[in-house]
Every structure is written in C-alpha cells, then in structure tokens.
C-alpha cells in the first residue's frame, strides 16, 4: 500500500510526539528518582593531632592558597611542682601548628613570655595574610591579661614580630583586674591586620568590658585610625563605659569590608540589680573606615537579636556582595548556659543593618565552631553539641553546614554520615576547591575524664552536578465535599500531597478514615480521593495518612457535619452563622447571626446556645439578628452552636446550627 507524504508526515509526527512524551516521562521519573544529595561526594583527607598534655584546645584554623593549614590554640606542655596548694601548676602556651597540604606537621610553636614564669598564655585565633604569613593572637594571663599577636613565617614558624612587647600601642596600661584579650583577627585589602579584643578595665576606675579593634601594618607597626586614638571602641553603655554593675561587652569576631569599614560581632552581658549579670544579648556593630562607630547602622534593632534568653553572635564574615553574615547560638537558658536551642545565622545589609536573610537550625546544646566563606561567597558554619548522663559524655557531635549566599542550607556534613562523634569544632576554614578544614577538641565519649587533644581535620566535598538544597518535609491536605448536609450524606474526600517527595508519586499510599468507623486505602499520585457515607447526625472527623515510597508520612483531617433531616416548621426557618467560625484557642468574642426565612413576620425571640454551655436570648422584630461577641471558647474543640427562633405571633419555632472549630496553639487549622 502506498502511503502519501501527508500520511507519512503525520505518522512521523505522531511518533515524534510519542517519543517526546516518553522522554519527558523518563526524565520526570529519573528526576524524582535522583537522591537529593547524590551529586555530592565526600572525601576525608586527613586528621592530625598535635601532641600536648591533657588540656589542649585548638581554637582557630586558617588555610593558605597552597592548602597548608595553620591551627592556633592553647596547649599544656609541662607540669611543674610549684606550691603546696597547687602541686601541679600546668603551663599553658599559646600554640600554633603549621601543616602541609597533606596534613603533615611542618612546625609547632608554643609561646609563653618567659617560659615557665608566665604559665598562663592562651591562643584564641589564627589567620593567614595574602602573603602567606601566619598570625596567631591570644593573651598572657599571669598578673594582668596582656594582648599578644605573633607573626610567623609559614615555612618554619619563626616569629617575625610579636606585639606583646609594646602592648598594642600604648593604649593598654595594665592595672589590677584590667584585661585586654584579643579574640579575632582579619585583614583589609591592603594587608593590614585588624585585631578585635575584649578590654576589661580597672575596677577602681569604673571602666568595664567593651569592644576594641586595633590595626597593625604587615611589619608590626601601628596603622592608626584617622578618627580615633589608637583603637576603635564600642561600649554598649555609651562612650563612658560602665564599671561593676553595668553591662559588659564581649568581642567574638571581626571582618573588614572592601571599602575599609569593619564589623565586630559579640554579645552584651546585661546587668540586673537583682540577678547580677543574668542575660546575654546578640550584638553586631559597624565601624567606618576612619575607626568611628557607624551609629546609625549599629543602632538598627536587627543587630540586637533577642530571643528572650541568652543569645551570642559568635562569628562574622563579609560576603562577596559586601553584606555581612553573623552566626551564633541563641535561646540559651541563663541558668543553664549549655542548653542552647539553636544555631542562628543572619545576613545583614551593609547599608542599613537590616536583615536580608536568616536561618535558624534547632540544635540543642549547640556550640558554635566558626564561620567562613569560599571564593563563591557561599557560607560555612561549624557547630557541635554534647550531651552527658551523670557526668559521662554520651554524645559529642560536630558538623558543618553550608549555606548559599541567601542562607538556604546546601548541605549538612552529617547527611553523608560525617558527624564527627567525640569532636568539638572551634574553628573552620575552606579552600577554593571544596576542602573544608576544622579544628577543635577530640574527646573521649564515654570516658569519665575526657582528655581533649589539639586536633584538626580536613575533608573535601566534591560538589559535582546540581546540588539540591534540603527540601521541606512531605505534607498533605484533606478536603471534603460537601462539608455539611442532612443525613444520609455522601462526601468525597480529596487528599493532596505537597512538599518534597523523594520517591515516585505513584508510590504514594493513602489511608482514608471517614471518621465513622470505615476506612479505605488507595494508591495514588499527588492526589487521591475516597468516598464516605454518613448515616447518623453528628460532626465526623475524617482523616488521611499518606505514606510515600521512601516511608515518609504526613496526615491531615477535616470535619463533616451531618444533621437531621429538616422538619417542616410551618412558615418559619432559620440559619445560623458564626463569625469567626474557627481559630486558635482561646477564640473569644464570636458573633452569632441568625437569619429567619419563610413567611413568619415576627417579632421573634432568638435563643442562642454557643455549644459549650453558654449562650443568651434576645427579642427582635427583625428577620436577622446578630448577637455580637456572644461566645468565648477557651478550650480547643469542635463546637456545635445552635439558635432557636420563635415567632411570637404564631409561636412557630425553628432551629439553626453552625460549627465553630477551635484548635490548639501552634496547631494548624484542620482544613
């Protein structure tokens, strides 16, 4: 048989359409079948431990362009017999360790000024400048707390200079109880070094803890700010400081923007006359390039996040777009300072201090482990939590969260099984090729006396392909049609799945429960239906439980109101409506409106029953009557309100009903 060109064309066209449809189906199925994080590969590079005593802590880490890592912190390196009271006084050294790109130790320097005679010297942060030099900051705590900054050669750890000797510029004149303790370090575009410190003043002089930022040139000389003395300063209590009984301000981080302005994160320990220092508040401030406080930016309420409990901003980084990311722990019970509720990260506008984005991750007993960014401007936050039973450490888990620039989580390290049991992360760094480096403590879970060691660990995440952010959980809604009617009533239940599915939609299983003792199970895709028949008069609560192919479940409910068949009442009928007819408890001041129809002319008596034992009666000549604010519902339940209307001329009566759905606090409305 000869086939015309036209028929041939149609045949090819239909074949092409069929192919396209199958192709689309295939890709649709394939995309559903792809695991959310399948594109990620995790590779553990190495773990290195610095040999110390029984109380070593890495507090910071930095990585240079070659992948060499530098870890800073404190390490016990000796125990000397010193006195009868304290027979073994340990010596803490500000310790910096350099590692090559393969995790092999290049050098280690433990510094105490004067060796054993100054036994308490702690490291707090470490950084690498654009030329590869390593800076370690900390403080010496023997009689007063002296600030300390050391610049090391990257190759061998030789001290190029130390700033302890000139006390960071002569602005620090130690006196009793005065302390200058650097906590963070950052660089500007010219390679100048910004050191943020908490300065606690002399008790006698009435000056208390506040923020200080000093700036040094790469050769160790001071690079003073043009509009201040040697340092930039911030006091939460005003420029005069406070003294005992005033708020105390503690620095945690510093970051310099491309325009030379710089930001400091920290927290304010608020003083209460009754409770003393009882509450800590998140605080972020901005300084202009000349060192003066940007008062407008720093006064934005968003920079002072307050959960009502203790909140600490604990790290800061300037993003590639110039805006500022701050991470910290929030919701800490002031009476139990280790009961953190969540790790929070906020992106602030560099112009206003307003919030551009934020993300809160519930993480009980969490500790912050640093914040950093990669060359793409994506943000990494280290965190960990611990728990114990009767003093025995039962769990200590560290992890890393990666966010995109809008603070959508991209991955959690624990999602590929990397949760670092028995670790506490204190510092985090990344390189430009997927390497993530963390430093902290290695603890012995289950031990009565954990012996933290000075550790760091590096791993690499190969982010090939498209990374799908973690998605919302499975969710389902349920609707009935109709939702009310006289018995016998047949209602069609429709369940609609929403949220992210990690399995094929045709694997969804819906278990419908009509609420009258009957149930049915159906397989569907994103939508499924079931029919329910109700023979008795009451309010039925129908429900659906959906289970997807991955075993995840979601539920939803809805109400169906079935009433008795209407009884003819001569010439009068009435309908009742409630406003509002749903809401969270307590649902108060609900209006009841009765509308009479039929041939009745009135006057009428309207007798309302709220359905919870309360109500009221009124007379009116009108065909419609509203009893305003009549009903209050303090308890969550489904209420059947009723009105009885009587035509006082004919004595005919009619009844109308309405449903009021009161649900609990934090519950979603069941429709």
């Amino acid at each position, binding site marked *: 048989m000869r086939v015309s060109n036209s028929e041939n064309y149609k045949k090819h066209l239909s074949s092409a359409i069929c192919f396209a449809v199958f192709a689309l189906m295939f890709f649709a199925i394939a995309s559903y079948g792809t695991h959310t994080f399948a594109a990620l590969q995790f590779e553990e590079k190495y773990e290195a431990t610095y040999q110390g005593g029984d*109380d070593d802590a890495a507090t910071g880490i930095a990585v240079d362009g070659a992948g060499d890592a530098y870890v800073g912190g404190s390490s016990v390196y000796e125990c000397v017999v010193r006195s009868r009271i304290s027979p073994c006084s340990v010596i803490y050294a500000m310790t910096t360790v350099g590692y090559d790109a393969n995790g092999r130790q290049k*050098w280690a320097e433990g510094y105490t000024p004067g060796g054993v005679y100054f036994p308490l010297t702690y490291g707090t942060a470490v950084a690498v400048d654009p030329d590869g030099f390593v800076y370690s900051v900390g403080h010496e705590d023997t009689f007063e707390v002296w600030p300390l900054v050391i610049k090391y050669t990257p190759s061998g750890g030789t001290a190029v200079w130390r700033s302890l000797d000139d006390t960071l510029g002569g602005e620090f004149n130690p006196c009793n109880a005065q302390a200058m303790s650097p906590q963070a370090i950052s660089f500007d575009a010219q390679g100048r070094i910004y050191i943020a410190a908490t300065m606690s003043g002399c008790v006698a002089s009435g000056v208390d803890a506040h923020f200080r930022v000093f700036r040094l040139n790469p050769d160790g000389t001071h690079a003073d700010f043009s509009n201040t003395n040697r340092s930039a300063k911030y006091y939460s209590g005003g420029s005069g400081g406070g003294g005992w009984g005033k708020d105390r301000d503690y620095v945690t981080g510093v970051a310099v923007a491309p325009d030379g302005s710089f930001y400091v994160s920290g927290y304010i320990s608020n003083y209460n006359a009754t409770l003393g220092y009882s509450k800590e508040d998140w605080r972020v401030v901005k300084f202009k390039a000349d060192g003066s406080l940007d008062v407008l930016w720093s006064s934005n309420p968003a920079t002072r996040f307050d959960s009502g409990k203790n909140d600490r901003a604990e790290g800061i980084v300037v993003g590639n777009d110039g805006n500022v990311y701050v991470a910290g722990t929030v919701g800490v019970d002031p009476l139990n300072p280790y009961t953190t509720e969540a790790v929070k990260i906020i992106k602030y506008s560099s112009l206003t201090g307003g919030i551009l984005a934020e993300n809160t991750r519930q993480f009980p007993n969490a500790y912050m482990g640093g914040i950093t960014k990669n060359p793409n401007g994506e943000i990494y936050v280290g965190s960990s939590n611990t728990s114990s039973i009767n003093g025995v450490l039962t769990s200590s888990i560290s992890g890393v969260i990666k966010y995109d620039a809008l603070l959508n989580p991209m991955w959690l390290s624990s999602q590929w099984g990397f949760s670092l049991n028995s670790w506490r992360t204190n510092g985090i760094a990344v390189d430009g090729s997927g390497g993530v480096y963390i430093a902290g403590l290695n603890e012995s879970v289950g031990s009565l006396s954990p012996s933290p060691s000075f550790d760091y660990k590096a791993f690499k995440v190969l982010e090939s392909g498209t990374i799908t952010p973690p998605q919302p959980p499975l969710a389902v809604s349920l609707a009935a049609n109709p939702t009310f009617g006289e018995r016998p009533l047949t209602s069609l239940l429709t369940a609609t799945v929403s949220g992210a599915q990690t399995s094929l939609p045709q694997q969804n299983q819906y278990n419908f429960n009509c609420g009258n003792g009957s149930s049915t199970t159906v397989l569907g895709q994103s939508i499924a239906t079931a029919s329910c028949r109700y023979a008795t008069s009451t309010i039925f609560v129908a429900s659906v439980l959906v289970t997807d192919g991955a075993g995840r479940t979601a539920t939803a409910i809805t109400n169906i109101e079935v009433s008795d068949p209407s009884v003819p009442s001569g010439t009068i009928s009435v309908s009742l409506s409630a406003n509002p007819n749903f809401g969270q408890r307590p649902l108060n001041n609900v209006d009841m409106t009765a509308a009479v129809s039929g041939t009745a002319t009135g006057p009428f008596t309207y007798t309302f029953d709220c359905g919870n034992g309360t109500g009221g009666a009124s007379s009116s000549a009108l065909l419609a009557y509203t009893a305003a604010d009549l009903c209050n519902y303090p308890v969550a339940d489904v209420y059947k309100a009723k009105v009885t209307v009587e035509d006082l001329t004919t004595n005919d009566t009619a009844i109308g009903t309405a449903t009021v759905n009161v649900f609990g606090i934090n519950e979603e409305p069941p429709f």
Partner: protein
Amino acid sequence: MESPVSKKILFVVVLVIITVVYLGFFFRSNRGTDLLGNPDKANQALDSAVKSDRIENCAQLRGVVVSGTDYEAVCRQNILEKQAWEKLDSGYCDTLGSASAVDYCKTSMAIAAVQKSQDLATCDSVSEGARIPCQTAYWSAKALGNSDIKLCDNISDKDFALSCRNGFTYQRFLAAPRDVACSELPVAMRGDCATFKRALQSKQIQGCYSLSDVPMRSLCLKLVGK
C-alpha cells in the same frame, strides 16, 4: 730558567685561584640579594638561621626586607632573645625599640629572675618599674608555698597586693573548689565559678565546656564525671 710550559701552568693556576676567591667573595656578599624577591626562600633562610642559634648565620639575610621587615634584624633578635632568656640577662631588653617594649621585657625578666632565685633581694637590682611586679611574684609564690594569703600584704602597692590575693584564691579554688565560695574570687571569675559548681552538682559535662577560664574548664572536666 723556567720553561714556557711551566709559566702557562702557573698562569692558569693563579687565574683559577683568583676566580675561585672572587666567586666565593661574590656569592658570600650577595647571599641576601639571592633572597630578594623570593619571600619563600627568605622565610626558609630565616627559619634555618634562627634554628642554628648562631648569630653569624644571620649575615646571609643582610638586606633582605620582606613586607617591610628586616630579616637580618629578625634573625638576630630571635637568637639574642633566646640567649637572654636562658641567662636571664636583662641587658638584652635595652636593645628593644620602644620604651614600653623595654619596660615589659625588664619586668618579665625580673619576675623570672626572682622566681628562679627565690630571693627577694633579687628585686633590689632590677629596674624601678619592674620592682613591684618582681616583689609581687616573690610574695605570690611565698603565699602559695606557705598556704598563707596574709603574705600578700607584704606588697606595698595595693593593686598588686590584690592581684596576689586574687591569684592565691584562684589557686586555692583549683586545688579544692568546694572549699572556696564564688564570692571570694575576683568579680570577673564569679560567673565561671557559679557555672563550674552547677556543672559539678548536676553532673552535666556540657557546663564545663561553657567555662571561659581554661584551667577551670580542665578541672571541671576531670571532676564532673567522678
């Protein structure tokens, strides 16, 4: 009479000697310039010279300036500082640049000297600015050694005397935390002290981790599980 061949040999030998001497001198005098413009090599040379503990090895860094820093001076200072601390020679302090650096160095050296000698007379020979800290170090050690806080009262300066008492109480706390009330500690440590005691009482090891004072945290970790 010497043969022409001998003359030629002699000429070649002399030429070789002159060349070797010249090249040796040239390379010796230009070691620093080899390192110029190569910070990695300069850093490695500095590391190597400092580790050698030989001051003469710093000469190879002559003229080498990296990021505004004279590497020969850095080398010399590292070695001299180490030697000074080994001998507790405060004369080294006078070589430092700024007045505050000199003061800090002399004070540190005096404290180290009296702790080593255990003799209060050591403080008589130190610079005036270092005298009170030196005496404080002496009486602090004596107070701890004799378990007698009243020895701190021998310090004439009231701020340093308070520092001595605070240090004594702090050490007493670390030795027997249950015997010391938090109100006895310096104001800045009372918060940590309260947290420490709550952690011990509740046996919540997380409480230890929230302590900012490092020795206190270490002790808390040791005690809370017992």
